[in-house]
């Protein structure tokens, strides 16, 4: 059984290969090549879902991706996938689909009561009704409304596996969108001039409208073969161009057939980013709806869809179809059904037409000069109310489906995204687009050139223009083409809305009625984009492709202006629902973003390091898998008491050379750099031009014209760009070069009272004594036999050296340090211990350099040089940036030594109101002091030394009494670093 409505052989279906599938628990059969929609229609199933707002029964309106109603859930390997279009979903064996937005069942939906209450639920109802109390929106109203309204439901379970996905980048001279008569002809013409062409067709087969006209079979087959054989033309079927992003960049989604999917390891979709110099938009035109009561009932379909179901799948959509049309083109379905033995009745708005004469000659019943003013039936159309335009004659005609055509609208979404001008054409009752010549051309029905022969000729002509734009020779006009002639037609008579009692829909997906549009207009939402947002017209998955212009027409009449003056809402990407997985491509989980690994990553990993991502870097946090602070404190105490070693290779490292290097750095840094002696290093701070601190680090002078800078890890990328920007703009007159050497150098810190003892074993030919190599000295040196650099700088507050060697030599130096340090009790420490050590000393990192702290706030105000220009100089002197009540850096310690601190604690006065005076930025248990220590930004902090405050975290329901102290809480005289 292939379905009772299957009356002919379909072009795409294979009658010998039957498929079993399941819809809402009912098992049915279809054929290979069917879509879910065609298989359901073949089985006589019209009721597919419930509508968005009113829960009205809905069927299938179209035969393609423009479908607004027939959205289903698919239950498969990916779990429950909502909002799949039945009209494009390829049927496969064992497919399980379910209808959406109904409860308890599709046939009996309790929320259909919304339909009866419809007059109380106009557009904007929710905004106006669910206003007070304000808390209730989020907690009560929205969840309720969301349950009642909507389309499919997302499953909240994240699948454990990742489906294969891929992104392909394509480059071409020309992207041709659409492979109908115009697109095929254009691609062929371009291909014969050896232009590199990508031909993207959303359908599973090439041909577009020629698939529906038997006279065109020979042309289509010959042309398809020719195009497929052209070496520079790449044909993609099942590929929807989702959006145009300017500069010739397009995104397309290629849906693989079941066979292709099996070949590519289960890959279902492929995202294609296409870059093309020119585009040919041959996307065709779409049939429009007419608004009248009941125009959404199951059994209502667009006239062209009836033709498509018959030709493509051999399915007759009804036994007694009734057409309601206003063009000759829309008769094609009636003629085709007639040839297949199904006799239609036709209601034509126009008093007379060539097509009506042809239909009558075939013996079909045609009611000219008449309109349908109501479709009757609830879960399926059973009759149609027809009225003559002249006179008062009304009658009811029996019909099992109502096939509407309100004319054709060129698909303008991609053109609009490319900035096309839309021009109203009275003769077509449609807007036609024209692209800026730099982007490309629109061809065929997409620009109102109707008729297959006309479209094919237009495609070839447009190809010639495109070749010219590419700087190639135009093609000679080919008049010899032997094309099946287009029939003469009687022009369209525009018809938009037939008034009456009941809801006449302009947008079936969002349940927007013509009355809603008029209400929007009365409420002042007269602009078409405002009306769209007030009513939700032309939104969601179909982007209003069927009803967009209809809504505009209703609005135009309500405003008393022409349709041309109203325009239509701009359709936005994406052209069809896209799985997020397809957009993400392979950039998921471990591949979500790149990871930067230290040169010694493997060593750290095999020695128990727990890693923490900082920026793109993975840094060792602590060398223990045990939780809690104890392992951290052990590492930090080893530094305070003996010697420790840590990998600081993540620091930004920038090499600055040139005769004007010192002058440039004086401009970049807020403190003076040019006075730095060769072989010395200096702490430096950079400001932003607005006067806030940007970054800090050390500057070492290796030669008169050669400096090496370090930046913080977090800011390393931004700081490099900052220098590169200024060296090429405001410093362009200087003779200086800036090079990023972050990846070229590995850098290790050796810290602790026994650091000299350790380092001196590895350094040859350099006196490390305190006199010869004092604090802030720097030199080139041979380290464990490796040419490198040594700096006596300290972040921990201990006697410390930082050793730098080319990254490839990192393991050798590290091993040498470990070996030499073993007898001294050397301990490797991680980022947490590093943090503990620096907090105790009041050294700042990004927690304090947060972009809203000035140098004065951090107690660094005196570093700003009084003379000479530097970035941020003028604006850092704004009085507001040194105001005494600003948040200033202080230390905090709990009064009760057992009290703990945490980052983000708010500081408030111990008595009185709870207004925040500041907050804790960094905190740690101390190595040598009792209990916790923290750094904080506190209003007027420097004037509050010794004050007692309360640190609170309402989130954790914690209160700790703290005392304000100097940010440097350990070795305040800095004796250790100079030891």
């Amino acid at each position, binding site marked *: 059984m292939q379905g009772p409505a299957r009356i002919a052989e379909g072009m795409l279906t294979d009658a010998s290969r039957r498929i079993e599938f399941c819809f809402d628990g009912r098992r049915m059969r279809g054929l290979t090549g069917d879509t879910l929609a065609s298989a359901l229609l073949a089985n006589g199933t019209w009721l597919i879902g419930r509508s968005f707002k009113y829960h009205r029964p809905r069927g299938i309106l179209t035969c393609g991706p423009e479908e607004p109603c027939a959205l289903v859930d698919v239950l498969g390997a990916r779990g429950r996938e909502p909002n799949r279009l039945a009209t494009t979903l390829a049927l496969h064996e064992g497919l399980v689909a379910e209808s959406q937005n109904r409860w308890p069942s599709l046939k009996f939906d309790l929320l259909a009561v919304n339909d009866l209450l419809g007059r109380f639920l106009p557009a904007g109802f929710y905004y106006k009704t669910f206003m007070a109390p304000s808390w209730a929106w989020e907690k009560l109203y929205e969840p309720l409304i969301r349950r009642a309204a909507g389309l499919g439901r997302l499953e909240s379970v994240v699948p454990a596996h990742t489906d294969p996905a891929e992104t392909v980048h394509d480059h071409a001279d020309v992207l041709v969108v659409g492979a109908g008569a115009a697109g095929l002809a254009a691609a062929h013409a371009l291909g014969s001039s050896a232009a590199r062409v990508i031909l993207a067709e959303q359908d599973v087969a090439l041909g577009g409208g020629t698939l529906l006209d038997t006279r065109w079979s020979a042309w289509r087959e010959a042309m398809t073969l020719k195009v497929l054989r052209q070496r520079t033309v790449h044909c993609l079927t099942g590929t929807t161009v989702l959006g145009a992003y300017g500069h010739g960049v397009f995104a397309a989604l290629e849906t693989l057939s079941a066979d292709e999917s099996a070949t590519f390891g289960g890959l279902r979709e492929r995202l294609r980013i296409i870059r093309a110099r020119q585009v040919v938009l041959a996307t065709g035109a779409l049939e429009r709806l007419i608004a009248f009561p009941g125009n959404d009932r199951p059994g209502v379909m667009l006239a062209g869809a009836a033709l498509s179901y018959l030709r493509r799948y051999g399915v007759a959509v009804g036994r007694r179809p009734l057409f309601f049309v206003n063009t000759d083109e829309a008769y094609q379905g009636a003629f085709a059904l007639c040839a297949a033995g199904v006799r239609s009745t036709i209601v034509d708005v126009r008093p007379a037409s060539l097509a009506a004469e042809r239909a009558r000659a075939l013996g079909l019943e045609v009611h000219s000069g008449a309109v349908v003013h109501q479709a009757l039936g609830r879960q399926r159309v059973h009759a149609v109310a027809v009225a003559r335009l002249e006179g008062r004659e009304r009658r009811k005609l029996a019909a099992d489906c109502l096939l509407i055509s309100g004319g054709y609208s060129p698909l303008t979404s991609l053109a609009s995204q490319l900035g096309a001008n839309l021009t109203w054409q009275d003769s077509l009752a449609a807007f036609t687009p024209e692209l*800026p010549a*730099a982007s490309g051309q629109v061809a065929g029905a997409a620009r109102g050139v109707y008729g297959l022969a006309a479209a094919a000729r237009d495609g070839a002509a447009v190809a010639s223009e495109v070749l010219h734009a590419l700087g190639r020779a135009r093609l000679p006009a080919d008049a010899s083409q032997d094309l099946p002639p287009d029939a003469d037609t009687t022009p369209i008579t525009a018809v938009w809305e037939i008034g009456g009692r009941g809801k006449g829909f302009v947008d079936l997906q969002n349940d927007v009625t013509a009355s809603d549009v008029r209400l929007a207009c009365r409420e002042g939402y007269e602009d078409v984009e405002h009306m769209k947002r007030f009513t939700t017209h032309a939104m969601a998955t179909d982007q209003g492709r069927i009803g967009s212009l209809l809504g505009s027409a209703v609005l135009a009449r309500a405003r008393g202006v022409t349709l041309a003056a109203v325009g239509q809402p701009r359709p936005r990407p994406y052209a069809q629902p896209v799985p997020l997985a397809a957009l993400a491509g392979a950039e998921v989980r471990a591949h979500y973003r790149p990871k930067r690994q230290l040169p010694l990553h493997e060593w750290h990993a095999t020695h128990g390091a727990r890693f923490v991502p900082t920026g793109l870097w993975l840094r060792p946090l602590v060398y223990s898998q045990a939780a809690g602070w104890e392992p951290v404190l052990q590492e930090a105490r080893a530094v305070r008491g003996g010697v420790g070693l840590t990998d600081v290779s993540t620091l930004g490292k920038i090499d600055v050379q040139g005769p004007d290097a010192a002058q440039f750095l004086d401009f970049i840094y807020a403190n003076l750099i040019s006075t730095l002696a060769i072989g010395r290093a200096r702490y430096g701070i950079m400001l932003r031009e607005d006067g806030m601190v940007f970054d800090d680090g050390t500057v070492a002078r290796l030669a008169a014209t050669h400096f090496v800078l370090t930046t913080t890890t977090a800011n390393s990328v931004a700081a490099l760009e900052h220098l*590169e*920007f200024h060296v090429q703009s405001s410093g362009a007159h200087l003779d200086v070069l800036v090079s990023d050497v972050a990846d070229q150098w590995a850098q290790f810190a050796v810290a602790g009272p026994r650091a000299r003892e350790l380092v001196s074993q590895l350094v040859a030919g350099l006196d490390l004594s305190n006199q010869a190599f004092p604090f802030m000295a720097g030199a080139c040196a041979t380290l464990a036999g490796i040419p490198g650099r040594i700096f006596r700088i300290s972040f921990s507050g201990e006697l410390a050296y930082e050793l730098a060697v080319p990254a490839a030599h990192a393991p050798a130096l590290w091993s040498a340090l470990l070996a030499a340090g073993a007898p001294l009790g050397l301990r490797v420490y991680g980022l947490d211990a590093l943090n503990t050590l620096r907090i105790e000393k009041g050294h700042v990192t990004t927690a304090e350099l947060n972009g809203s702290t000035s140098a004065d706030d951090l107690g660094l105000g005196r570093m700003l040089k009084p003379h000479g220009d530097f970035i941020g100089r003028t604006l850092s*002197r704004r009085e507001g940036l040194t105001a005494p009540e600003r948040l200033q850096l202080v230390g905090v310690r709990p009064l009760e030594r057992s009290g703990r601190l945490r980052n983000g604690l708010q500081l408030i006065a111990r008595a009185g109101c709870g207004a925040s005076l500041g907050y804790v930025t960094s905190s740690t248990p101390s190595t040598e002091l009792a209990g916790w220590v923290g750094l904080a930004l506190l209003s007027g902090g420097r004037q509050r030394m010794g004050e007692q405050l309360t640190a609170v975290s309402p989130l954790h329901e914690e209160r700790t009494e703290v005392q304000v102290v100097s940010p440097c809480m350990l070795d305040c005289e800095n004796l250790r670093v100079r030891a």
Partner: protein
Amino acid sequence: MLRIACPWCGVRDESEFRYRGDASKSRPSADAGLKAFNAYVYERDNPKGWHLEWWLHVGGCRKLLTVLRHTLTHEIRWVGGASDQPPEELR
């Protein structure tokens, strides 16, 4: 997505570049005063039309480019080095 023709690397995607702001602004001299620096840092035109911008090619040659872009159509009609100026007739 913008496609920027880097004079050193060729036509590349916008994602390779970092936008660095309005290139028609030049830094005031050191003693220009608070008002001049305030204008330099905070005051920006929002033109509908041609706009001269800095783009740093961080994903390529790391050169600073000057780009003349139309803010409405995104058309780029001229790209030069950091110290280049577009021909007067283009602006």
